[in-house]
């Protein structure tokens, strides 16, 4: 099993979710995040004093899935989230050794069906 973590712009999340639903991927967990990278932060101003906002807002989507599905999911993410502008985000793939469905105690593949 693999864990796919996608760090994306907040505004594309709904599009991504719908695309994944079409692929038959229902299970996912999301987190609010903030990040920096090649894309730089912004500036704000308050009472004439300016300040930096070095991070930009991001959403992290985590999906645990069977190995053979990772490629199509990655493609779906790129399709839904790539704009071509710096700051589109990253996908990280890492190994998951076991999965348990809390409700039933099922393990492994069964747990994410």
């Amino acid at each position, binding site marked *: 099993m693999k864990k796919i973590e996608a760090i994306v*712009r907040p*505004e594309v999340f709904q599009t991504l979710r719908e695309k994944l639903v079409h692929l038959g991927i229902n299970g996912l967990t999301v987190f609010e995040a903030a990040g920096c990278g090649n894309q730089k932060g912004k500036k704000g101003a*308050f009472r004439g004093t300016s300040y930096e906002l070095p991070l930009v*807002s991001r959403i992290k989507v985590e999906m645990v899935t069977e190995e053979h599905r990772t490629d199509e999911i990655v493609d779906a993410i790129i399709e839904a989230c790539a704009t071509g502008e710096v700051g589109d985000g990253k996908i990280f793939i890492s190994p998951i050794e076991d999965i348990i469905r809390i409700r039933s105690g099922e393990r492994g593949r069964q747990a994410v069906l």
Partner: protein
Amino acid sequence: MKKKILSITALGSLVTTSAYAAPVTAESVQFSLDTMWVMIAAILVFFMHAGFAMVESGFTRAKNTLNILLKNILTISIGSVLYFLVGYGIMFGSSNGFFGTTGFALSGVEDVGFFLFQAVFAATCATIISGAVAERMKLSSYLILTVLMTGAIYPVVGHWVWGGGWISELGFVDFAGSTVVHLTGAVGAFVAVAFLGARIGKYEGKKVNAIPGHNIPIGALGVFILWFGWFGFNGGSSLAADPTLVPIVISTTLLSASGGVIASALYTKIRFKQIDPSITLNGALGGLVGITAGTANVSLIGAVVIGLVAGVILVEGIRFIDVVAKKDDPVGAIAVHGICGIWGTLAVGLFDTANGLFYGGGAALLGVQSIGVGAVILWTGLAVSAVVFILKSTGGIRVSREEEITGLDYAEHGSNAYELKESLVSSSSTGNSAMSGSLVERLDQLGKSAKKKKVYKESV
């Protein structure tokens, strides 16, 4: 309001003859009392601007809050100064038939108290627009429109109805301004919204999306403040501390607003299966706008009925504007001030205890009321259309798509209405700062977009 104007300007001569040092007579004391009552009422009406500011910021999104607050405080400020310099003269100066032409900057005007009361009214009319155009209209365009509303468009309406103009001559009854103030503002709002278009994401094909407000408690507070101020709005329009009139005006105002709340609550329960809190709060405003024209002319029972009807009309009115007419009015200003304003004006024709249809007075008054409504819609519609059309053709009236998605607060002012997280921001590369790009607020700033793979540049 017209009739009383005469009596006060008649008494107005007292100001010079019976100055404070002059002998105190029962007449002079009554005049003092009248003046103080109108001042107190004007102060209450002023406070309605706090109510508008809270309603409008509470019922829109957090990312546009500073902008809407700014629009509100600038409206009362610009409105007051403009009405002082120009508006009052157009409204109450000696008439050229169409508008007044004297009294600019109050030159030659003695009754400063009357001016004051009228000035806070003028700003009220203008601020109605700010709610409807919220979250997308350029601040600069909005301000130009405000200047013209308080300096010219509204004063002309006021001249016709309260300044001794042609509509008043027909016998048109609009005691405190269902038409003069509220309908005028709402027509301006409707026209501005029509030119502006809806907020991004409001309408998608056939779908109508909900864009809930971000802070309903302050919106509710705003409603209570408006209701509170409205006692001054209607009560002060008597322009005299008349013990036979003011208690009735205050009572009809209370009862109609109550009726509006009750009806909106019940009717949303029937219509949508659950009571809608946000519409119920609007229900109070619907009842208030509804009673404003007839507050001195209907019975207490009449007031309850006018309010109940306003509460139902309001619900359907909001749905109509939102779903059928597809005019995106974030705070429901057009339904509250426009549709209930028309209802209130016509209701006088029905419920006026002297001349109303239901009291055996025939349909004559109803006819006159309709003419007044029609005339105000026509004039305001045309005038505002002209203004907004010109503004739109020259530079545009709407912020850019990117600014709208980011939120006007950050885009136009570089700031936010609520605190960001301290720990995530630095104000310099070397120092820790006290500000932060909150995870949470950022989400609000960015919103969603990007259906078509187009994402705005984030660097500002």
